[in-house]
């Protein structure tokens, strides 16, 4: 790289300037654009609140003071951030490979089901074995569920956008069937599974809050995914396949193997999110175990520009919004429908700025 640049550049001084300029553009794109997306959506949200007779600024302060009120409320934000970061990180890997996995929601359910099935089946195990076992079960189930879409793409050229969406429905409805049928807790009137055995519960890291060890695992995996994507040859191959499958094939890289790898990694991360929800938060399987984390994870990855480390921050931001939506209802009586509209605006503007960045980053393609 440096050689090519210095041949182009007339002097070393302007070389440094060019480098600085590039670094500046990169930082600008990584930080300023997402920030702009958030600001624009906040402006729209304030306008919408004003039209409905609320003072936008008051609501904003109520929301932030509620979200960061005490240790518990901050722990709740991190608790919500955990699945969002996990899914976002996984989707960064898939999206870098140009695999448009819209099925994280279904993969989360697959993971949740596997974790529940394993977590109620083996009494007598110690936590040291049982907790890793249920987590592993969730990750493997998520990966397997995603791999179905990957294999359909490889062998039948079926668009993963369509197949992953369809697999979402299957996973969600199958979960409903399981908790009303085979996995239903016989003692309960409400459709829910039996409670996970105590030894399968993930350890809490900030008692008395509900925050569990999952947030640390999520952050560690985000960093690991970054190293994989940008500092390893296997990750390099995933990215090359994403940018140009033909070039990848020409360079001797297996396109289908990398597709399968990328979609399985994203599925495993979504499965982990499901595993953590069961083994760390609810300890039972319910019909609506995810409030849409799988879809929000797409926005998390896009806002992070498909950078796994960035997903730590964008995932936390979306968790703040999510916590804030409950606070806005409880402390300011903003109706849930209005809160949903505001969340929608945030996601739209995030995606909108993402498309703009995508276009401007590749003018020649």
């Amino acid at each position, binding site marked *: 790289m440096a050689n090519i640049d210095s041949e182009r550049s007339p002097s070393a001084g302007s070389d440094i300037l060019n480098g600085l300029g590039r670094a500046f553009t990169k930082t600008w794109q990584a930080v300023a654009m997402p920030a702009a997306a958030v600001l624009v959506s906040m402006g729209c949200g304030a306008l919408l609140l004003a039209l409905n007779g609320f003072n936008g600024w008051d609501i904003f*302060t109520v929301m932030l003071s509620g979200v960061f009120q005490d240790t518990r409320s901050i722990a709740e934000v991190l608790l919500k951030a955990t699945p969002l970061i996990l899914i976002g990180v996984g989707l960064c890997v898939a999206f870098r490979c140009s695999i448009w996995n819209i099925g994280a929601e279904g993969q989360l359910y697959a993971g949740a089901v596997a974790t529940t099935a394993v977590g109620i089946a083996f009494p007598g195990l110690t936590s040291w074995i049982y907790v890793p076992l249920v987590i592993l079960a969730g990750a493997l189930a998520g990966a397997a569920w995603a791999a179905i879409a990957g294999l359909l793409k490889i062998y039948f050229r079926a668009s993963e956008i369509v197949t992953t969406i369809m697999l979402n429905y299957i996973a969600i409805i199958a979960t409903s069937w399981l908790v009303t049928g085979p996995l239903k807790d016989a003692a309960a009137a*409400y459709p*829910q599974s039996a409670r996970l055995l105590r030894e399968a519960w993930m350890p809490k890291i900030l008692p008395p809050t509900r925050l569990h060890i999952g947030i640390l695992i999520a952050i560690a995996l985000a960093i690991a995914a970054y190293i994989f994507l940008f500092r390893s040859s296997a990750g390099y191959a995933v990215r090359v396949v994403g940018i140009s499958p033909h070039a990848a094939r020409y360079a001797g890289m297996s396109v289908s193997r990398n597709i399968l790898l990328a979609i399985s990694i994203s599925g495993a991360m979504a499965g982990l999110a499901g595993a953590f929800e069961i083994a760390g938060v609810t300890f039972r399987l*319910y019909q*609506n175990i995810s409030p849409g984390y799988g879809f929000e994870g797409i926005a998390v990855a896009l806002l992070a520009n498909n950078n796994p480390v960035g997903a730590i921050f964008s995932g936390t931001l979306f968790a703040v919004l999510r916590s804030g939506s409950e606070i806005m209802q*409880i402390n300011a009586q903003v109706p*849930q429908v209005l809160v949903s509209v505001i969340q929608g605006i945030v996601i739209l503007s995030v995606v909108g700025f993402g498309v703009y960045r995508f276009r401007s980053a590749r003018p020649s393609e």
Partner: protein
Amino acid sequence: MKLKRRGFLAGAAVLAVAIGFGPAKAQSEFKMGLLVPGSVAEEGWNRIAYEALKRVEKELGAKISYVELHENPAAFENAFRDYASQGYQVVLGHGFQFQDAALTVAPEFPDTTFLISSSYVHEGNVIGLNTDASQPFYLMGVIAAKMGKGAGLVGGIEIPPIKQAFEGFMDGAKSVDPNFPVSTVYIGSFTDATAAKEAALSMISQGSDFVVPNANSAGLGVIQAVREAGTGIGTFSVYSDYTEVAPKNIAGTFVADYGQGIVRIVSGIRDGAVPETNVDFGLKDEDVIKFTYNDGADKPVPEDIRKYVEQVRAKIVAGEIQTRAK
């Protein structure tokens, strides 16, 4: 003397926080929070709780707040804590699904009473509230067996409260005539009025002359079917007053005024009288469970049967007749 900039900034920040967040509210204010598993904008289950909450605000002068949680169990505990930690004296979780979360949170907040709809729980400050529909359904069964040849029951989804109500109906009918035929159908939906109507029409064609719904808004289909079948076929209006839809066929109306029940319980809690057991609204609670006759029907319930029903009602209230297996 030079003004210390850092000190000034810190002072300003504290001031801003104090203004922004406002002073702590007086402790005496009575506050009630509500958790609903869906949207209060739609008619039905969640709306009932919302209207009860509005009545608590109006009649007891309480500060109220509600949150819609859309069946997301992971959020239940946190919402309970949000309210309890802000000093809400009463929090109502509207549905059995909130029971586990309330039991987990309640020991941390002994000054808050956690009410759970359609639950029989009573553990410390967690108190279940239930509306026992099996009692008015027992009365309906008595009337149907006294007046008709056979009855059909159209249920929404086979869940305990609906099954119990139907068992009450069958026990009531059998107390009059052990061989009185009662058939039951579950349409698998609380909204599909067409399916309810089809089920009712087929029951009528098979000889039922009383067809009674218990299927939320889908139940309207039963009322329509009975009206189309004409005179001789009777029904009861259940939970909502549909008398206008079939004024000639409806023999009686059962409505549960849950809001009134909530206002009574919550005002007791405000005055220091927290219920000592779980609350099960039944015919003894005449302000909550109301069963009335329709005098405008083609075949109104005759006076002698009304007298008999009144005796049965008294026995249920006295506990001499059990309408539901405990």
